[in-house]
């Protein structure tokens, strides 16, 4: 009996202890032990433990969780970098809770402007980020790179690279239909679609059931129709100087994109197709083109029912007499938590990582996770992305519209656009009005 009691007590005690440990452990206290073992033989110099949290799916030989800490340790033996990688949704939740509880990792991944719940502007406004203006790598990144990470004149994040929106096409079908050159303006683009359709080929396939794909086409048109005329369009939305309902801005973009649906150039059942099914159709050679991003390149280059050569061009949303612009956006990048105890160490890591020539940078560029825009690796990008990187280098590209809007505006646009192409009687003017209303609501909050 006594023995039983003792057992029960010890089990209960163990449970309570483990529960408490689970609640109370901060990342540094856990890792202290392992770190001190690592450097047991080394000098008495204090090992600084820097924590970092990023979003994404961990891959074999992952850059952030494996290569990055290893190379940082090699360069700075007394810096111990701990990286946690979480799937997007979990990352957002973890970030919010840790910010709220004041236990945020030293470095976090932020997105440019207003994109996502880890948007740099949202976090900087709340005072969670440390300014990075004294980093020397910012010069290499350039103004185009730092602008989307600037809040009230200070830079709060560094983009790791760029991401592209473009038009993937089937070179074999193009050849078969007698199309020799990539279209260079909107008229030529419509012409190409017309030729394909006449030859009995579905010109474009889109998976609009996952309505976010509507952005892929629309933002490419907007990069040609809105920002070349007014770079400040999105910033001025906040001050009220511009509005979505302004004539010849979004009304034009939306009606241009709608033409593709009206003429049956985009598959008529697109609202019932998922993004994945659309990619499958393209890969199987059932449609000649699809609008998609550099982030889906692997899926779009996968082998399908038919073997064919792929091409990738910026959708020419420009008028005949205008130059073409690309939709090339800054990708996400690291930022430093304002209340971190290791701001100097974090900066040291960023200087080393993003300098464009170090071993760490080379490993990063070679990982092929992002399209790097400067330094080692930028000259040997995937040939598919070449036209876009060139446009970017010539300063003829613009960020993705939703990065300039509070999150949620684009969802309203997608829902309304879906209603329009689904024949619910929604007009272009209704969409711009709804977008403006949503924007006002979101910025007022």
């Amino acid at each position, binding site marked *: 009996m006594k023995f039983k009691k003792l057992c029960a007590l010890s089990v209960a005690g163990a449970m309570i202890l483990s529960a408490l440990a689970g609640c109370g452990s901060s990342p540094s206290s856990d890792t202290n032990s392992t770190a001190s073992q690592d450097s047991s033989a080394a000098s008495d110099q204090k090992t600084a433990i820097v924590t970092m949290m990023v979003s994404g799916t961990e891959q074999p030989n992952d850059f952030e969780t494996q290569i990055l800490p290893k190379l940082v340790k090699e360069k700075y033996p007394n810096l111990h970098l701990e990286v946690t990688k979480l799937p997007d*949704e979990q990352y957002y939740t973890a970030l919010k809770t840790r910010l709220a509880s004041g236990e945020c990792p030293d470095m976090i991944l932020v997105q440019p402007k207003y994109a996502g719940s880890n948007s740099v502007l949202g976090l900087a406004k*709340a005072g*969670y980020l440390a300014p990075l203006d004294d980093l020397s790598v910012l010069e290499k990144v350039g103004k185009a790179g730092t602008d989307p990470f600037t809040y009230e004149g200070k830079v709060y994040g560094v983009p790791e690279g760029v991401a592209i929106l473009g038009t993937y096409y089937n070179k074999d079908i193009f050849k078969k239909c007698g199309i020799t050159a990539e279209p260079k303006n909107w008229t030529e683009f419509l012409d190409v679609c017309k030729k394909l359709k006449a030859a009995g080929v579905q010109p474009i396939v889109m998976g609009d*059931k996952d309505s976010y794909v509507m952005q892929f086409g629309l933002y490419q048109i907007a990069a040609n129709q809105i920002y070349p005329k007014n770079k400040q369009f999105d910033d001025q939305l906040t001050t009220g100087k511009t509005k979505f309902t302004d004539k010849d801005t979004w009304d034009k973009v939306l009606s241009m994109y709608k033409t593709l649906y009206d003429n049956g150039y985009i598959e008529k059942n697109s*609202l*019932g197709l998922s993004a994945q099914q659309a990619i499958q159709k393209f890969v199987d050679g059932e449609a000649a083109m699809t609008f998609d991003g550099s982030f889906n390149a692997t899926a779009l280059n996968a082998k399908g029912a038919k073997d064919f050569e792929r091409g990738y061009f910026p959708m020419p949303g420009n008028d005949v007499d205008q130059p073409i612009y690309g939709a090339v956006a800054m990708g996400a990048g690291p930022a430093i938590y304002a209340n971190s105890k290791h701001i100097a160490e974090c900066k040291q890591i960023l200087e080393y990582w993003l300098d464009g020539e170090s071993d760490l940078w080379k490993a990063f560029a070679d990982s092929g996770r992002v399209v790097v825009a400067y330094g080692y690796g930028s000259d040997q990008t995937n040939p598919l992305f070449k036209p876009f990187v060139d446009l970017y280098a010539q300063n003829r590209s613009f960020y993705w519209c939703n990065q300039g809007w*509070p999150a*949620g505006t684009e969802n309203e646009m997608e829902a309304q656009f879906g*209603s329009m192409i689904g024949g619910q009687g929604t007009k272009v003017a209704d969409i711009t009005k709804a977008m403006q209303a949503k924007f006002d609501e979101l910025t007022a*909050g």
Partner: protein
Amino acid sequence: MEMQKLRRRRLKGSPIFPKKMYAFVIPAFILFLTFWIFPVFQLFYYSFTNFNGINYHFDFIGFKNYFTLFHQGTLINSIKNTLIYTVLIVVGSNVLGLAVAMALNMKLKGKTFFRTCTFLPALFSAIVVGFIWSYVYMPDKGMIASLLELIGMDGSRFNVLGDFTWALYAIAAVEIWKSFGTTMIIYLAGLQTVDESLLEAGKIDGCTEWQLIRKIKLPLISSTITINVVLSVIAGLKAFDYAFIMTNGGPGKATNTLMYTIYKIAFNEQMMGKASAFSVVSFIVIILITISMLIFMNKREVEL
């Protein structure tokens, strides 16, 4: 003498469950309060703010969130969609479940096999089911479209998930397909409690098969019916999975259910305040529906 002893014992508390045992509830109770009750009350608090989930310097804005909800029509649309969905689920999965349960309650060869088959869909997770069915519904090349082609109809016109009228019915059908197995099992258990002698008596008195069902079986399993209906109502009002996996609330806003809209406002648009207000309203709607349902069903049970 004995009575007195008993009374004294009752005053002291039961010997099997002494009063100090209540102390043991405290740990669980504390956990329940901190992780369940307290957050629920916080929801009411946040519904009066413009909290965005990140910035803790938020303002109190009174009933503004509630006013916007009613103004924008999102609330009405979501409630409408949810109610249609719920009615479909309740009717569909119960009628189907009951019919199959009755069929499988008969003396039938391979009964166990059929029972297993019927219950099989319930074993898959919602993600898997949603994924499979989005290929069944796929326009042009999906299963249904191919079958239509096979019998000489135009399969390329079949596009339910992309259709504003049909999308909601299409995802409800999937939920029914997945859930009627569970409903069936509960009905089957209920039907097996029906006393064989009552049925025999009915037969001797000259009841038809329909009269046996209507007058004997259904009244005797009325409590099972209540359970099943309440469970389906709850499942219907909580509808989120298939609207999220199969249609993303689309096309347009045609499959925006209450839960999906809350998710969208909270995690896409990051308006935690507004989402809280939405949750409060849904909470009230759901409570009202459940209470009226229970009152109605309890009355029914007595009548039957």
